């Protein structure tokens, strides 16, 4: 970032001398001076900050309803405070614990089965020499990312459903049909497969960028020393990507409880509540739909607090590995 700043500031040498000086010796500046120096950077982050403030931090005031018996006609100001009653009710609700369990199990399955796939894909793509073939493959695996979940579920239903292409083929050839879409026992693998199909192609973007950043002279030097493909992968490529992999893993763990909403609400009828209820659908079904807004908010707040704890814990682990995590120590 500093390099960019210098680059912009340097050419009109005479007029920008003060700012060039400031850029080189920033430590002694006060808050105002630093703001003045970094104004272009600050302005660049402003839209994101406003977005966060309006759509993420602003609505957090609504969390107060988790401690109320909120009524839509009395509003936040008029609804009575009930302390931790909603949480007590939540923690004694077996359906809530079941939703939490489902969320964690699904997260774990996705972590193991989904997370490595974009890395492998990125490595494979990177090894393709022809840039035409590479961009063609890349475009194809990207595409499902732009589909909505409704479409993804419909595509899966049409292909693998009870009346879908696969089972119709099996029937017409007198073979046993395969219940994929309405089997609650294998639902976790189904949703992981859907997630892989939809998002793996998109997930490779960051890894490809990390691969591109690796100095190609390292490979040349290693090759000259007689390192084969696997040695180069192990000693150059993977260490080069480690920072990015750990960062994404940290973010992933922090998001362990945000497994998704649409994918599950869409398939809830197909496999039943026991398999498909996750925390977000629980808050929706038992909070919003039943107009128990305080109850749903309590479930959401609980999820938020646990997520922050997970994120911090994962970040600590990242630091232990000597990586940056999502902020530097």
């Amino acid at each position: 970032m500093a390099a960019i700043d210098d680059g912009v500031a340097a050419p009109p040498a005479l007029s920008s001398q003060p700012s060039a000086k400031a850029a080189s010796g920033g430590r002694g500046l006060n808050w105002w001076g630093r703001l003045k120096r970094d104004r272009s950077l600050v302005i660049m982050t402003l839209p994101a900050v406003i977005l966060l403030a309006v759509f993420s931090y602003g609505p957090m005031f609504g969390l107060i309803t988790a401690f109320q018996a909120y009524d839509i006609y009395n509003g936040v100001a008029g609804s009575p405070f009930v302390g931790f009653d909603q949480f007590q009710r939540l923690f004694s609700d077996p359906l809530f614990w079941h939703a939490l369990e489902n969320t964690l199990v699904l997260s774990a399955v996705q972590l193991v089965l989904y997370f490595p796939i974009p890395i492998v894909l990125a490595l494979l793509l990177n090894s393709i020499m022809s840039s035409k073939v590479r961009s063609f493959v890349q475009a194809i695996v990207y595409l499902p990312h732009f589909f909505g979940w409704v479409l993804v579920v419909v595509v899966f239903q049409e292909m693998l459903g009870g009346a879908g292409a696969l089972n119709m083929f099996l029937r017409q050839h007198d073979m046993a049909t395969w219940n994929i879409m309405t089997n609650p026992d294998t639902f976790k693998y189904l949703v992981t497969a859907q997630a892989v199909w939809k998002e793996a192609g998109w997930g490779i973007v960051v890894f490809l960028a990390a691969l591109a950043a690796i100095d190609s002279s390292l490979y040349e030097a290693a090759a000259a020393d007689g390192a084969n493909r696997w040695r180069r992968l192990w000693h150059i490529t993977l260490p080069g990507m480690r920072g990015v992999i750990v960062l994404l893993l940290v973010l992933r763990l922090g998001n362990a409880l945000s497994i998704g909403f649409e994918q599950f609400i869409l398939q809830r009828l197909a496999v039943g509540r026991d398999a498909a209820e996750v925390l977000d659908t629980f808050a929706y079904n038992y909070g919003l739909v039943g107009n128990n807004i305080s109850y749903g908010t309590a479930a959401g707040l609980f999820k938020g607090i646990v997520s922050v704890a997970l994120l911090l814990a994962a970040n600590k682990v990242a630091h232990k590995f000597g990586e940056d995590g999502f902020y530097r120590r």
Partner: protein
Amino acid sequence: MQDPLKGAATNRRQFLSLAGLGVLSVAGVGGLAGCTDKKANGPGTTSQSDLSKILPNYIPNTAVKPDMPAVVGANGAVSDPVFLRYPDSPVKTVAAIPGKGGSYTTMTPLWGAIPPSDGNSYYDAVNKALGVTLKIQPSDGTNYGNALPALFAADKLPDWIQIPGWNTSTLNFGQGVSKFADLTPYLAGDKIKDYPNLANIPTGAWQAGVWNGKLYGLPVYPGGAIISGTYFYRRDIFEKLNISPDSIKTPDDLAALGAQLTSASAGQWAFDDLFGDDANYVSQLFHFPQKWGIDSSGKLFHKYESQEIIEALNWYQKIVKAGHVHPDAIAGNNQNGKQRFWSGKVCITADGTGAWNGDDAKSGTAANPSYRRAAFKLMSSKGTPTVEIGPGAGMFGYLNAKLSEDKIKELLKVADYIAAPYGSAEWLVVNFGAEGDTYTMKDGNPALTEKGAKEVATTFQFLVTPSNQTTVQQGFPDVAKDYGTWQAEMVKYAVKPAFYAMNVTEPSQYSSIGKAVQDMIQDVKFGRKSVADYQETVKSWKSQGGDALRAFYEDIRNKYGTGQ
């Protein structure tokens, strides 16, 4: 499923303290409402004697004679009259342009594709005739009920909004209705004479628009034979296979068709979802109520507790197990149910009676030229069939309480225009827009042009509607005749459910206790859980508020009767 029960036991004290809070807030509401009406109360309902003072009188307009007149059935049910041809010279029922140029926001549900709002010449044509600008804002009907609480909470209600009766329970509507204008001073008794087309709506249709002793709602699609749905079959397929639909009299007869009509390798299944959301279709087959019933000893019971729902679950589990239900229906994909029926992938389905119309015939014959929908005569698991009829109108339009008296009067005049009966010049405008632009007359009936098919949707009609009638759509007179004949037979078996049209507002803390039972029904239907699991869930439903609700309704019954 033992955990939930255990949880329910430990949960109970906690729950009761919450219930206490609910009572407190309801009491507070009662106090507030008490300022305006001494008899006002939480339940929202109104005594019969008060109703007679509030409801508008019925002054029928008989200018157009139906081809098949309405048939009076049992318990006050009346079938819709059938018209096969639009009058050549439609009568004018409204003398002058009703509006004075005001501009108003609206919100209505729409089950279907939402038409473009910019440059929509249908909207423009109707608004021009009304002399106001109604900003039409249709919203997805399926999720309508989930959007409403936020709208109420933010106090961002439009000037004129439609609220379906089935969405009022989560809105605590006995309280929420105070956000809307009290129409009693404008429409009660003979005052409705100022609005002759509104006066042409039968008195019974207004009843469910009365809350806490005041008239608030304008009836939407009022009818004398509103039922939750029925069982349809592909008449063309039945004729080809020589199956006599009249021989199908019981649920077991129906199930027995499964093997004959299913050929999975050819992609054809006998049945779509026959159960319905929350058992609303299957209840007719097995004689259990949609909500509350009264047993032979006079005790109130909920459908979840009935023996009959267990029979229904067992019956449906067998059909599913036999492989006679379309896999997509089992996967919970109900949006494409009509397409499956049109294309012949299923032969028998359950649907609302509104599915049986000319648009359906158009779509069906496009998929298969010999397509013909028909409904079974009412079936019954034991003895003579019965069918519960809904209130005289299931949905109502409400005007915002913030509107001034002048504006309310302007909108009521506009409502009078929109409620113009079939056979009038106004009806054509409201339903079809401008002749030559969005519709043309074809074989004596209006038909949408290509442009009309894109721009016309049920929008103004969802604000207020004249009495239901069966008409020829898309050039299919047989559909109108078939439906009229079937309905005239059906009304003979009508019964009024307990708390008919009474607008009882349940205490809000019970609003989500049914969800666990509905989820369980879904699991049992498809064999993922057993009937014994279902009974366990019902036990916990009772302890979590089902029994308290019964006591609540018992109290309503003592004070106001059952409305039957």
